[in-house]
């Protein structure tokens, strides 16, 4: 019997009535991970997880539904005493002496960290293939990518190894892999979840978020990890709220916009058709759907490249071999230490982004590109604000294609950004956005839809997502019961 296939409430009841113990869940999670064999993890936390599970046997099970449940954490989130590599040779020996704020929150909720998930190196990529440790596989077709950069987290959730995972989303890195693997991934409003302890890629865009197999569990995990943190000055000072509170309410009268750009010829027909069909379903459920024109959406990728790479070039400067991480052996002088450490420690894509970012901030380029991008970004935010004056939601496909082959060429650096063309605008505007599965393509690969709402309206997103989830009632188990045979 697999406990982790049950609903969260069922598992909680079993734990509460002492029919099972946290250790049963932990052991099952490790069995699942081994069976799935998706290269979803960089480091497993077996010893500590078992220890924690046993400790929890002496703790009374409270009303917290997440008590004793295993969780996977993306490997760019610092975990005290547990390797945090960012999927890079630069940090493959890095043992943090501090926890990210989200990790403290997970621990406080008595959840059990099962391991650190695979990802693109320093979250730079869209297929997790820039990982120093090799790419994770998509459980729907193990020859295919699970997306990126939170590919490992997406993969392990889709495979039903564990119920909960954390990802991070700078330009779609939660929603895009969630779409490729048929799971629910939320990028909360910028500032909802503390970034303290998240190894920065692009500070003004990075946001940690929950990845789960369904909407309700997603909202539950956001309840745990969100909240104001005085260690992060960009953390927003909103009152704590229950993100599940609107789940179950109907969506009658809700106004939904689909930007024409989101269903233009950059998107595969099969996906456009699925979105249009879903729009019809939503109308049947009582919502009103309009196709609208939105300015700036087509510029989002360009703006993203400038801002994200500019910030990244500075954020990654600290990896110099002096205080932590990889360090060139026997350097001749300080210059040799810098050059050697960074040449050896960083992979190709990371180096490319640091170089481009440095160039964009250099001399008069800063005015011509970086500062201009910052100002257009404000215009883009304003455009979203205007749309949300008339609409409750913006929806559209999460990706332009479904997951492609791991062996597809990686030689076009722009391709990776184009994978994220539909998800990036949300990061630029700092808004919450969620991916949910809405069906499959002809090869039975998942198709995802993203739901965007105004700042701090995560609960409202969950309301729409859960209503649609219930209506669609998809079978989202990639193993189709075959795995246990």
């Amino acid at each position, binding site marked *: 019997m697999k406990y982790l296939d049950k609903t969260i409430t069922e598992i909680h009841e079993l734990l509460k009535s002492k029919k099972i113990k946290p250790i049963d869940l932990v052991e099952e999670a490790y069995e699942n991970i081994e069976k799935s064999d998706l290269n979803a993890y960089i480091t497993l936390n077996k010893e500590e997880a078992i220890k924690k599970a046993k400790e929890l046997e002496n703790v009374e099970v409270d009303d917290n539904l997440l008590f004793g449940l295993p969780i996977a954490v993306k490997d*760019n*989130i*610092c975990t005290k005493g547990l390797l*945090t590599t*960012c999927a890079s040779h630069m*940090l493959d020996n*890095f043992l*943090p*002496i*501090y926890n*990210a704020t989200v990790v403290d929150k997970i621990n406080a909720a008595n959840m059990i960290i099962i391991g650190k998930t695979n990802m693109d190196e320093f979250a730079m990529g869209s297929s997790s293939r820039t990982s120093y440790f090799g790419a994770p596989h998509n459980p729907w077709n193990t020859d295919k990518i699970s997306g990126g950069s939170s590919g490992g987290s997406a993969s392990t959730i889709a495979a039903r190894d564990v119920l909960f995972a954390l990802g991070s989303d700078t330009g779609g890195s939660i929603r895009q892999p969630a779409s490729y693997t048929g799971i629910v991934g939320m990028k909360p409003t910028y500032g909802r979840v503390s*970034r*303290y*302890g*998240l*190894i*920065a890629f*692009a*500070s*003004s865009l990075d946001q940690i978020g929950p990845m789960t197999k369904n909407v309700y569990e997603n909202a539950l995990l956001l309840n745990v990890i969100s909240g104001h943190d*005085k*260690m*992060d*000055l*960009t953390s927003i000072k909103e009152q704590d709220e229950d993100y599940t509170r609107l789940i179950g309410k109907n969506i009658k009268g809700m106004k939904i916009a689909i930007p024409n750009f989101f269903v233009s010829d950059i998107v595969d027909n099969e996906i456009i058709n699925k979105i249009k069909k879903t729009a019809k379903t939503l109308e049947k459920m009582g919502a009103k759907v309009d196709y609208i024109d939105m300015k700036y959406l087509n510029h989002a990728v360009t703006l993203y490249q400038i801002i994200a790479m*500019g*910030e990244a*070039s*500075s954020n990654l*400067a*600290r*990896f*110099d071999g*002096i*205080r*932590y*991480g990889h360090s060139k052996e026997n350097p001749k002088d*300080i210059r040799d230490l*810098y050059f050697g450490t960074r040449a050896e420690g960083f992979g190709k894509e990371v180096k490319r982004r640091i170089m481009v970012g*440095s160039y964009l*901030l*250099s*001399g008069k380029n*800063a005015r011509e590109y*970086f*500062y201009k991008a*910052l100002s257009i970004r404000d215009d883009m935010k304003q455009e979203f604000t205007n749309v949300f004056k008339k609409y409750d939601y913006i929806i559209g496909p999460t990706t332009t294609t479904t997951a492609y082959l791991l062996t597809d060429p990686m030689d076009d650096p722009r391709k990776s950004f184009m994978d994220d063309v539909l998800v990036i605008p949300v990061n630029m505007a700092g808004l919450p956005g969620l991916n949910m599965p809405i069906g499959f393509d002809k090869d039975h690969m998942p198709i995802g839809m993203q739901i965007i709402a105004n700042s701090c309206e995560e609960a409202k997103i969950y309301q729409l997502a859960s209503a649609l989830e219930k209506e669609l009632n998809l079978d989202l188990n990639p193993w189709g019961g075959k795995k246990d045979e």
Partner: protein
Amino acid sequence: MSNYIATIGVEVHVELKTKTKIFSNSKNGYGQMANSLTNVIDLGYPGTLPTLNEEVLNLAIKAATVLNCKIRPEIHFDRKNYFYPDNPKNYQITQFATPIGYDGYVEIEVDGEKKKVYIEEMHIEEDTCKSTHRGVKTLLDFNRAGVPLIEIVTKPCMTNSKEAKAYLEKLKELLFYSDISDCKMEEGSMRADANVSIRKKESDPFGTKAEIKNIGSISNVGVSIEKEIERQAKIYDKGETFKPQTRRYDDKLGDTVLMRVKETGNDYRYFPEPDIPFVIVTDERIKNVKKTIPMLPDERREKYLSLGVSEINTTKLIQNRNLSDYFNHLLEEKISHQTASNLLLGDISAYLNKTEKDITDTTLSKERFIELVNLVSNSTLTSKNLKEILEIILESKDSIQSIMKSQGIENITDDKEIREVIQKIISENPESVEDYKNGHDRAIKYLMGQVMKETKGKANPKMANDILKEELQ
């Protein structure tokens, strides 16, 4: 070299006297064990983020105020990107686009002439760590990393080393007096760079600039500017030119030494710090900070002089902040302020130095000090007697008069008693009386001596003097 006009600008870094660092809660301290005042934020560990110490903002507002700067209502921080081992994140968080203070001035006086030194801008930034070179190795002490700094940049408005020195003295005095910084150049809490160029005529464009970095004392700033002007003049006199460069002052050589030639402008790839949101500096906040600014040296000087304190005592008092603060409590009192300053700077200072105490550590309350000043002013307590009982005065809480009594220092203040003694002395010394009447002033001193001898020093000298003169008429 006198036929050149020098143009001098000064940049000063000042460490702020805060309890904790600017972007973390590590202690801000000097002289502690290496790397004992650091945490993962100061060390630039991955994933860590800066917080903003509000105390820094308040001190910066204070500094901007005492430097007569305009204060920008909305500020942000920028990243200055460069690789150096003393720079933990390989970027320094500073202010590039929106310095908190701008367009200020400091008034100096050189050779009796007043002049304004204009402040271009004043911004907040973090200090780097301290590197010590030992042979082929470099040791890093991160205690200083993240210590809050303000950098104050003047316009190129000074023309000689005297002005630069006067500016630095004044700056130091202002920042020290307003509790912004210790301003100890020897400990590095105040560091100065000087930019020097020379040209023939006012109408000529500015000459090539040399920057002299990190000069360790105010007097060395003076020497290095003079040496640099001399060096540049020699080059121009030969018809040669030089490239913009960075130099340092070598204390042993007593001269500036080339560090590096500036080939191209530095490219620090500045951009707004995304980890710290914009800060709104409200008028309310500025108002509250202004309330915390104590009376500044110039105002003190003016007040003291107007109360009849001598020029020299005024200067000495202002040099001793604690005594000056103590003295400020007495400004409204009807006492002899000159006597009060004499007492503070004389016997009391000697006692404080000997015992390594602060004036506020003694028992000398305002009321008792006023009593003391009055007793000395009207000569009830002579300086000789004061010396005998000063320790008791500063260590007990009894009134000065009761201390005098218990120590057997008693003045004969009875008019009649003194007059009798004086009449006796006059009758016994007819020659001296004659000398006095012939205009020999020395005679009265002799007679006074006799009176004091007769009364064993207990006669109130002022009273005795007055009566003596009366009796001699």
